[in-house]
């Protein structure tokens, strides 16, 4: 198969995956609604819409050669078909079979791309067989007229009763007398379709590309502003009218760019229902598993939030729900004994906070969190001391639930009780720029309140410099920036420390942690140098940097698909001018700093070894290629020369004006001022004219060699045929 066709089929398959997941969700929702056993008109309608979802999925699967999925859908379709034909109803055992099928179907959809399938052929065949026998219509419950439900009758028949020997139809009648739900924002498979007419399906990746492209305009905008100011600085009156026009133009450009960005960010919003749609199914399964009866209410599904946040929110939200069902809600018997409604309440609501935040509340009316048990578990795990525990407020105690290692559950189940989950929930939510709090009343229930930004917020960080490299440290981890002198450094047990408000804080050089070689140009005198105090999980470390360049704002970006995780670096941000700055990963930095050995740090206290600078020759390298520049620098520095680098001829000439160099090594082809012209300028300058110049070039033509000599270069070395020793020999000959 040629590549274009392959790509086309791949794209088709990708579209299918998106579409199939929607059909799958609609099928599951249809099942959940059907299980609630609505009045017969609704029932028929639901059977019809669910049937159509299965049918569409079948057709789509066949179109992309997913024949197994197609066959499977056909069996499910068969059940609904006979249900339609014979107007029968589904019994609980049918629901089990159908949920199992839906699970298998979901698993198959997830595994389309994978080589190793977890859905075994036998499970598949068995499930198909179960469905096919149902299809014969023999086991379908005969239809029966169900009277309209009397309003507001609370109480749902318990699962135990359901599974007892009573005739099936009697149960179904009772089951329906369920407490009416409040207005739910979630859409069922039936009603969800209505909105599809005026919407288009688009992948998050495509929207992110658009957002990225729109964000690029920000730098265009800021650059334009910068250039206008530069022209203004020339103080040329002739330009003033033009500058005014450009200012106006820049002003409207700014507004357009800002509007564009806001609107594109809006397209990234998705309703919460896309996430909450999976909740009824999960609650149903967990309720069954833990023998708990649950009335689930969901509100605010229509509220919109950045879909990237929604995607990340799924796991923490499900964990909270599981926590409520496993730990919060009691079994029906316990509830009855406590004089409560045997059906537990699980309420999930989404609301707009003032401003750009969204508040999600997950609330249960269960037993609440046992303060003493939680404190006890925390003391046992060493999170708080016995002594400190006496002084803690109720809120502080409840907050302990988010610390890892704390679980009040005596049993470790597969979903909760390990004491890790809540810590992960809190971490994830803080990663998304939000926070989570908990409140609880013994015997009355627990509620978790998550506050999240509507869109992914821009990142703020402190720009620092080490040697000639810049990094950015997330502002949130920076306790403060201070300046200290060498006198303030103490050495304790082979570690350097400084004292901060009476507390000792380890001190390391950020460059050492990142393994950036020091160029050793520090001055001898006791000049204060900048230090950032970074803080993570109550650990403080002081990091020495060369410069602190203020706070910056930007978006966090990853480093591309090849660089998945680099130690000490979380990602990058792009500054106004397009410059890419690595963002430091503070937790990892603090961890890495602990591993630094004494010898590496010793130099902080010890005086810098005195270098006889009179004897050390100082060489200027002019080279536009960064790799070649670093290579040359390494060669020359390892041979004992002091080196300064310039990115082109013009910069080199500027450096030559301010400092005295013993020799210049220059590339020939460079922007702004090339090597020939740089040589000519050096030779034309009274002071510089005697400085030896070596041209290093890819141009190996006699004409160029001649040109180099005519300009006054002392040596001409061709790249490629070039050996390291050759350059060093040449330098030694000249200085």
């Amino acid at each position, binding site marked *: 198969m*040629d*590549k*274009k*066709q392959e790509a*086309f*089929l791949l794209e*088709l398959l990708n579209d299918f995956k998106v579409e199939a997941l929607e059909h799958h969700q609609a099928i599951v929702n249809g099942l959940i609604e059907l299980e609630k056993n609505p009045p017969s008109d609704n029932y028929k309608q639901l059977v019809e819409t669910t049937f*159509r979802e299965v*049918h*569409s999925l079948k*057709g*789509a699967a066949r*179109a992309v050669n997913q024949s197994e999925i197609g066959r499977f859908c056909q069996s499910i379709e068969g059940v609904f078909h006979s249900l339609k034909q014979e107007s029968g109803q589904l019994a609980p055992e049918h629901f089990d079979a159908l949920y199992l099928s839906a699970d298998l179907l979901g698993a198959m959809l997830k595994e389309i791309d994978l080589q190793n399938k977890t859905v075994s052929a036998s499970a598949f065949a068995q499930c198909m067989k179960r469905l096919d026998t149902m299809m014969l219509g023999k086991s379908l419950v005969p239809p029966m007229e169900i009277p309209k439900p009397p309003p507001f009758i609370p109480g749902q028949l318990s699962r135990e009763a359901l599974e007892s020997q009573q005739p099936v139809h009697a149960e179904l009648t009772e089951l329906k007398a369920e407490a009416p739900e409040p207005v739910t924002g979630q859409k069922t498979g039936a009603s969800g379709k209505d909105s599809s007419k005026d919407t288009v399906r688009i992948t998050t990746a495509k929207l992110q590309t658009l957002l*990225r*492209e729109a*964000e*690029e305009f920000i730098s265009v905008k800021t650059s334009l502003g910068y250039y206008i100011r530069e022209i203004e600085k020339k103080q040329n009156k002739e330009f003033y009218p033009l500058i005014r026009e450009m200012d106006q133009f820049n002003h409207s450009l700014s507004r357009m760019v800002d509007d564009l960005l806001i609107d594109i960010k809006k397209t990234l919003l998705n309703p919460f229902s896309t996430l909450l749609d999976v909740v009824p199914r999960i609650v149903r399964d967990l309720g069954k598993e833990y023998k708990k009866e649950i009335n689930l209410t969901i509100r605010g599904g229509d509220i919109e939030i950045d879909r990237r946040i929604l995607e990340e929110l799924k796991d923490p939200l499900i964990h909270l729900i599981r926590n409520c069902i496993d730990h919060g809600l009691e079994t029906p018997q316990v509830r009855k004994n406590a004089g409560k409604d045997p059906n537990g309440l699980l309420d999930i609501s989404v609301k707009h906070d003032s401003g750009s935040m969204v508040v999600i509340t997950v609330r249960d009316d269960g037993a609440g969190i046992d303060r003493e048990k939680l404190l006890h578990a925390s003391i046992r795990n060493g999170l708080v001391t016995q002594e400190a525990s006496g002084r803690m407020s109720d809120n502080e105690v409840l907050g302990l639930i988010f610390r890892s290692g704390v679980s009040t559950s005596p049993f470790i189940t597969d979903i909760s009780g390990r004491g890790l989950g809540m810590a992960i929930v809190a971490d994830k939510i803080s990663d998304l720029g939000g926070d989570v709090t908990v409140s609880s009343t013994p015997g009355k229930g627990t509620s978790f309140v998550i506050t999240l930004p509507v869109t992914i917020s821009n990142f703020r960080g402190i720009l620092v410099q080490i040697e000639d*490299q810049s990094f950015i440290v997330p502002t949130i981890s920076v306790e403060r920036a201070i300046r200290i002198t060498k006198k303030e450094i103490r050495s304790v047990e082979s570690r350097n420390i400084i004292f901060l408000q009476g507390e000792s804080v380890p001190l390391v050089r950020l460059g050492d942690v*990142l*393994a*950036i070689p020091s160029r050793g140009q520090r001055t001898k005198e006791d000049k204060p140098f900048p230090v950032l105090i970074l803080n993570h999980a109550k650990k403080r470390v002081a990091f020495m940097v060369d410069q602190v360049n203020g706070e910056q704002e930007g978006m966090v*970006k*990853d*480093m*591309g*698909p*090849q*660089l*998945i*995780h*680099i*130690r*000490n*670096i979380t990602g*990058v941000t*792009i500054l106004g001018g*397009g*410059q*890419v*700055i*690595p963002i430091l990963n503070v937790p990892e930095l603090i961890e890495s700093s602990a591993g630094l050995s004494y010898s590496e740090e010793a130099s902080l206290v010890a005086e810098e070894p005195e270098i006889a600078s009179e004897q050390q020759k100082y060489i200027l390298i002019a080279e*536009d*290629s*960064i*790799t*070649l520049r670093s*290579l*040359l620098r390494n060669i020359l520095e390892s041979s004992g020369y002091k080196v300064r680098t310039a990115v082109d001829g013009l910069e080199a000439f500027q450096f030559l004006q301010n400092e005295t160099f013993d020799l210049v090594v220059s590339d020939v082809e460079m922007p702004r001022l090339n090597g020939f012209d740089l040589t000519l300028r050096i030779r034309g300058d009274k002071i510089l004219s005697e400085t030896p110049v070596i041209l*290093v070039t*890819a141009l190996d033509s006699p004409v160029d060699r001649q040109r180099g000599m005519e300009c006054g270069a002392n040596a001409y070395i061709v*790249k*490629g*045929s*070039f*050996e390291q020793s050759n350059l060093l020999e040449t330098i030694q000959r000249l200085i």
Partner: protein
Amino acid sequence: MARDPLELLQKRALMISRRQSDTEGASRTIMVVEFLLTPEQYAVDTSFVTEVLPLRNLTLIPGTPPYVIGIMNVRGKIISIVNLKSFFNLVQKGLSSQNRVIVLRHKEMEFGIVTDGISATRRIDTETLSKPPASRQDPGSDYIRGITAEGLILLNAEALLSSKAIVVNQK
């Protein structure tokens, strides 16, 4: 409701695939970009090349393996840049200018390779490729499709872009 559009899609898919295979014909040549990795001349299938850029404003990332020379901002997108000579463990013979980047892409993977210059794009006949000489036992040989009569080394871009060895994950 979904039936008709789906059938239509199916038909279209078939039509497109036929048209493709018709034009393909018996041609065994592929279009390549020829580039220099001093002192050798390499080539890469253009269908994996998304663009060619000058190497500039490189940001170094401390802690990366030596073959990752840094990252670049390509219109707001971050592209990591690989030095193949270092990845292939080739001896760094002589100085090279390393001034041009070829951005390669396959499926989700994308990165740039730094070259000493781009010479040309042209067609080469994949049938006449010879195996890399036995003397070339470096790790790079896994990523080479073959060598043309003129000594042009054709990279196996797909293998390179699917390689797990080139991905950096220090988690």
